[in-house]
């Protein structure tokens, strides 16, 4: 029976005048463009900006719930000072005025700067303004600055930048429009949150194959055409088995390897010598290759050189040398890398590994794309077309958050090189300002010449050899986090996760003030969370806090705010100016160079200030050279003014759009006083489309390289050669072997690690935590995933999003659970070698049998985030971080639980055992004390006219 039809008058919509503004979302780091509609003064609707290069009009769950973030009861409202007599961490504060707050900070920071600037440690979390905070730290003169990279995904950045000149994470993207075969390694959500979703849809429409390699089948993996349930920490082995198949079949891109990689470079084979394993170079320090045509050894490689990919040759000095690729082939053809011999360990059968390798080879070499685009290579040779081997890969924290992630990521890049599948049509492609030389020519600056002077450069960089480390003559680390020390030589993004532990231990030295911006270090961003919280409260013999002063700049009542001595309340993303700069993590896509802004859409209803303005204010008061005129007067009125007028180098500032006095030049040009207005008029972003001739093979695309030099992306116009054999790694290995003519570690344990882990070729080793313990003691791998609707700790305050996830379980494979006599909803003990916690279990099919997992950062401290003390987040949800130790068992706390090469936090190395709770045992443990609970509405009727 069809339902009868009726016609009725609909209620009249709100007729208040509409105001439409464009800005950039900040509910996560993806930085999508948003279109914001106001009805009168009321925030009505936030949607995607259709023109924006990042999200092309779509918006994720978090972005669409931005209004609830704006309404959060956890918003900070005034500067806060820890009440005299109350303990740090109790979260009891007195509200103070901004004048007083700034005066306190200024006095303290000035004193430190005048005496020992290292004693200020300034660390920032998942923020989007490292260009400014980095500049600020450098100008202050402290080496103790870094952002979240060290505990996030520096393994991807370092492996990529040392190997191919760009990288996974925010420095490259798959060619969604042209790839025919896409392999996703260890990604649940990523920063390119919307771009990946948009891209996966494109793949599916085109019928390209999508393979997801992931122990858990949710989210992206749910829609994969093929799901490979790899065992955590074994991807490196899987990738090298794929290499083994490609080499055995001989299905590799010989020309690509010969021209664009260091495959033909000759490596000195002189065991025991100081230069063993380094490249043989000519008098101009150019690496030598063997020219197959002339049969000569030469450093002068031209377009016509036909370098031998394989072979052993005798150098002028009579010593033997082999090509990089010979050394690689000899290693990976070894049966230990044959699919049959890795299958059991990876949990992937040999036939599948072979098929994957061959499917990639088939697509790369039989479904080759040719585009009629004329381009000029680095040697000036003009090609009338661009070829693409349409296999693309993308990888993130499933790879990086393991202590073998650096080498695993290098192995992935090696597969891409063998297939000739980099930065061509259909490949994983660079996002401007990348590619840069592998690695970028920037060394970590460590100390100012004298107090009150800036550091020579950024505190972070890319060491090429032991001389570049941040250590004293006796090997003592110069940085509080021990980045660029023998324990983590290539810690290119610092090691934020070690700052608190080291500072409290006074190792390598005590600090005075810890300044945290946008980092929830007292909770989800630390390992050993309960222990870290005790450290933050730890006092010395005479009752002084071991970290004397903690400044927290946050917008909301996080767990870390509770530990602050001074809280500087920030604005929200709808209330301030922001520059999403090319000097920072780019939002560029492969074909378009882009940056963007935020601008105030509504006035703050609280006594808060944009942190950017606060930084500029402090920089001016403290007289940083870049922020004051020669006569000492302040240069910039505020952040808005700074962004317009500051120039990193002539013509290059934070924003690339509408430069030049007339606003007509792109990327480079004099400051434009009306630049903000220009951005706002253009929907708050700037886009520069690369002409086709500049879009591909940019590592060796002459006209692109020339363009990139002009734009200030790179220093000189030279081909960027991809590094199969990594000389920087070898120099550190030589130091470990005591052969290196330069700094060498005194400690045997350091030497051993260098020898073992600084292999110049990608290799696989079991994650460190697994090495020290028999598998059966802690049989399960324990990992986390990003929920698509939550951004780390800060969406539990969102009234809509928390209805979707306010609680988490430990997920386990159905069969594994059955075998252990466990069932859904059971309360269980999850025990690691470090600690144990209590939570509830859920079973699922789509989970690798040796793996358990949960959603990241769902649990909250009672009273934090404006939530009631009995909120699920505080009563039944659990934080896996409690189980993760910040130090490795061996080495007496000397080595952090990180990748030995980059210092990347090894979150996913965690091994656990799971047992059923005794009858009656329930509720989360460890229990965390409550912060003062804020009053929040019992009912929301948002939108009520």
């Amino acid at each position, binding site marked *: 029976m069809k339902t009868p039809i009726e016609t009725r008058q609909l209620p009249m919509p709100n007729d208040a005048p509409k105001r439409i503004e464009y800005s950039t979302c900040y509910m996560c780091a993806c930085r999508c463009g948003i279109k914001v509609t106001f009805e009168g003064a009321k925030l009505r609707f936030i949607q995607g900006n259709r023109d924006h290069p990042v999200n092309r009009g779509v918006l994720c769950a978090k972005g669409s719930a931005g209004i609830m973030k704006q309404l959060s009861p956890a918003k900070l409202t005034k500067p806060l000072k820890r009440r005299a007599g109350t303990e740090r961490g109790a979260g009891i504060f007195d509200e103070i005025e901004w004048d007083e707050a700034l005066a306190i900070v200024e006095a303290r920071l000035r004193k430190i700067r005048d005496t020992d600037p290292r004693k200020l440690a300034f660390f920032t979390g998942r923020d989007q303004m490292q260009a400014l905070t980095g500049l600020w730290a450098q100008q202050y003169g402290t080496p103790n600055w870094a952002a979240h990279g060290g505990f996030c995904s520096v393994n991807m950045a370092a492996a990529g930048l040392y190997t191919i000149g760009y990288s996974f994470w925010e420095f490259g993207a798959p060619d969604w429009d042209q790839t025919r075969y896409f392999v996703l390694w260890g990604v649940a959500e990523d920063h390119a949150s919307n771009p990946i979703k948009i891209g996966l849809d494109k793949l599916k429409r085109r019928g390209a194959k999508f393979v997801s390699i992931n122990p858990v089948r*949710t989210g992206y993996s749910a829609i994969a055409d093929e799901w490979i349930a790899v065992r955590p920490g074994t991807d490196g082995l899987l990738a090298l088995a794929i290499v083994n198949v490609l080499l055995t079949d001989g299905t590799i891109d010989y020309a690509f390897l010969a021209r664009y990689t260091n495959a033909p470079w000759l490596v000195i084979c002189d065991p025991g010598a100081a230069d063993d394993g380094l490249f043989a170079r000519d008098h101009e320090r150019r690496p030598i290759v063997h020219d197959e045509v002339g049969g000569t050894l030469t450093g002068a490689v031209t377009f016509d050189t036909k370098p031998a990919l394989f072979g052993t040759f005798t150098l002028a000095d009579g010593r033997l040398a082999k090509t990089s690729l010979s050394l690689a082939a000899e290693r990976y053809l070894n049966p230990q890398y044959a699919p049959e011999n890795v299958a059991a360990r990876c949990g992937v059968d040999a036939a599948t590994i072979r098929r994957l390798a061959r499917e990639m080879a088939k697509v790369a070499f039989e479904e080759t794309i040719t585009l009629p685009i004329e381009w000029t290579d680095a040697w000036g040779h003009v090609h009338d077309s661009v070829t693409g081997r349409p296999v693309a890969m993308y990888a993130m924290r499933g790879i990086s958050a393991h202590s073998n992630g650096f080498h695993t990521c290098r192995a992935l890049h090696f597969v891409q090189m063998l297939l000739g599948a980099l930065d061509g049509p259909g490949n994983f492609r660079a996002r401007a300002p990348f590619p840069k030389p592998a690695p970028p020519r920037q060394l970590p600056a460590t100390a100012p010449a004298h107090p009150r002077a800036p550091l020579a450069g950024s505190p972070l960089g890319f060491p090429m050899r032991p001389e570049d480390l941040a250590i004293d003559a006796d090997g003592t680390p110069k940085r509080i986090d021990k980045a660029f020390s023998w324990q983590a030589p290539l810690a290119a993004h610092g090691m934020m996760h070690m700052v608190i532990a080291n500072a409290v231990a006074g190792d390598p030295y005590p600090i005075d003030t810890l300044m945290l911006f946008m980092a929830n270090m007292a909770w989800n961003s630390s390992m050993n969370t309960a222990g870290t919280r005790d450290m933050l409260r730890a006092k010395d013999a005479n009752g002084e806090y071991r970290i004397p002063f903690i400044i927290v700049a946050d917008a909301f009542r996080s767990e870390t705010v509770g530990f602050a001595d001074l809280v500087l309340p920030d604005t929200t993303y709808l209330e301030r100016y922001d520059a999403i700069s090319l000097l920072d993590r780019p939002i560029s896509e492969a074909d378009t160079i882009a940056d963007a802004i935020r601008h105030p859409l509504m006035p703050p209803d609280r006594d808060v200030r944009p942190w950017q303005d606060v930084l500029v204010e402090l920089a001016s008061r403290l007289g940083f050279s870049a922020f004051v005129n020669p006569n000492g007067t302040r240069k910039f009125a505020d952040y808005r003014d700074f962004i317009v007028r500051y120039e990193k180098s002539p013509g290059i500032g934070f924003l690339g759009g509408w430069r030049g006095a007339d606003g007509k030049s792109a990327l480079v040009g004099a400051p434009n006083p009306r630049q903000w207005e220009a951005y706002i008029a253009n929907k708050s972003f700037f886009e520069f489309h690369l002409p086709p001739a500049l879009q591909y093979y940019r590592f060796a695309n002459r006209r692109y390289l020339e363009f990139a030099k002009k734009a200030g992306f790179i220093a000189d116009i030279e081909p960027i050669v991809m590094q199969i054999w990594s000389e920087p790694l070898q120099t550190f290995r030589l130091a470990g072997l005591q052969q290196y003519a330069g700094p060498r570690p005194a400690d045997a344990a350091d030497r051993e690690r260098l020898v073992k882990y600084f292999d110049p070729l990608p290799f696989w080793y079991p994650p460190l935590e697994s090495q020290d313990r028999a598998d059966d003691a802690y049989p399960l791998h324990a990992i986390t995933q990003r929920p698509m609707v939550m951004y780390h700790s800060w969406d539990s305050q969102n009234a809509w999003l928390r*209805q*979707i996830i306010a*609680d988490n379980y430990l997920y386990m494979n159905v069969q594994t659970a059955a075998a252990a006599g466990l069932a859904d909803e059971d309360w269980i003990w999850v025990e690691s070698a470090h600690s144990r916690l209590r939570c509830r279990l859920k079973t*699922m099919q*789509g989970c690798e049998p040796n793996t358990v997992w949960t959603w990241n950062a769902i649990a909250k401290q009672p009273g934090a985030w404006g939530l009631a003390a009995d909120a699920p987040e505080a009563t039944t949800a659990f934080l896996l971080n409690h189980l993760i130790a910040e130090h490795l068992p061996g080495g007496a706390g000397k080595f952090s639980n990180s990748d030995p090469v980059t210092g990347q936090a090894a979150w996913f190395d965690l091994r656990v055992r799971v047992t059923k709770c005794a009858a009656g045992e329930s509720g989360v443990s460890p229990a965390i004390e409550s912060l003062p609970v804020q009053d929040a509405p019992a009912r929301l009727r948002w939108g009520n006219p």
Partner: protein
Amino acid sequence: MHAALSVILFTVLSGMGLGAFAIVAADELARTFSARADALAPWNVAGAIALALVIAGLCFSTLHLANPKNAWRSAARFRTSWLSREAVFAVAFLATAAAFLGARWMGVAAGARVVLAVLTVGLAWVVIVCTAMIYASLKPIRAWHTWRVPLNYLLLAHASGAVLIVAILDGTAIAMQPLRMLAAGLLLVAALAKWEYRRYLAGDQRRVTLESALGVAHGVRGAGAPATVAARLLDVGHSRGTFLTREFVVTPTPVRQQAAVIAMWLGVYVLQLLWLWQGTRNPIAAALAIVVLLSGLLAERWLFFVEARHTVRLYHGERRV
């Protein structure tokens, strides 16, 4: 389904009242066509009590509305909505029933009384059926979408009504045997119907599976895909309750369910039959019988709701409903 006390009280009380009143009206007919001449007054009292029960029930029903100020609109969809029909006929019933009682009181001419009696009986039955059809018309609830529901409602209304009348007239001079027989008879038939209904509930007829609810009954990939595969809920998409879980995903604890089943069989059927069978006149026993009957009926009606499984439960993880 969530069992709202207001709805339980409504259906139980109005059902009993309607059943009882139907019998009172039927008695009127019996008198006209037989030579019976026992006192009218006690019967009228019974009728008045029955009417009161119906009114009480209807009052309870409005407590179930989240927005009662619009209750007056509830007759609007008479053409399609059993709830509209129930509302309309309930009012009609109240009017005729009142008229009928009045007529008897004032000793109006027999002819008019008969007409009113016939009307009242008819309306009582229609109202009972409308109430039952509100549930029986709901396809998503297998336990309700069956002819068994109106049948059980009719039988229980009359059986409980008959018991009520026996209890009321128990203290009078009226000859009780035939009434006891009637009540017992109705109870036995009702018990039979209930037993058959519960067999249906336990059985497999017209069950719906999660796989068909998700459209994967023939494999995930639609046409020409692998054979049937089992589906299971991974995550329901909300951490705490929703309107749907509160309304549809309530499951009684086995203990309470068993207790209710026993209370129903004893309270509504067994004990009543015993009481009717033992025949001695005792006002306390009579009152007790009604209390026991009501509690039995409350248990019966509670089960009617909590044992009913809505298809929405499939989407919340139940494999079959």
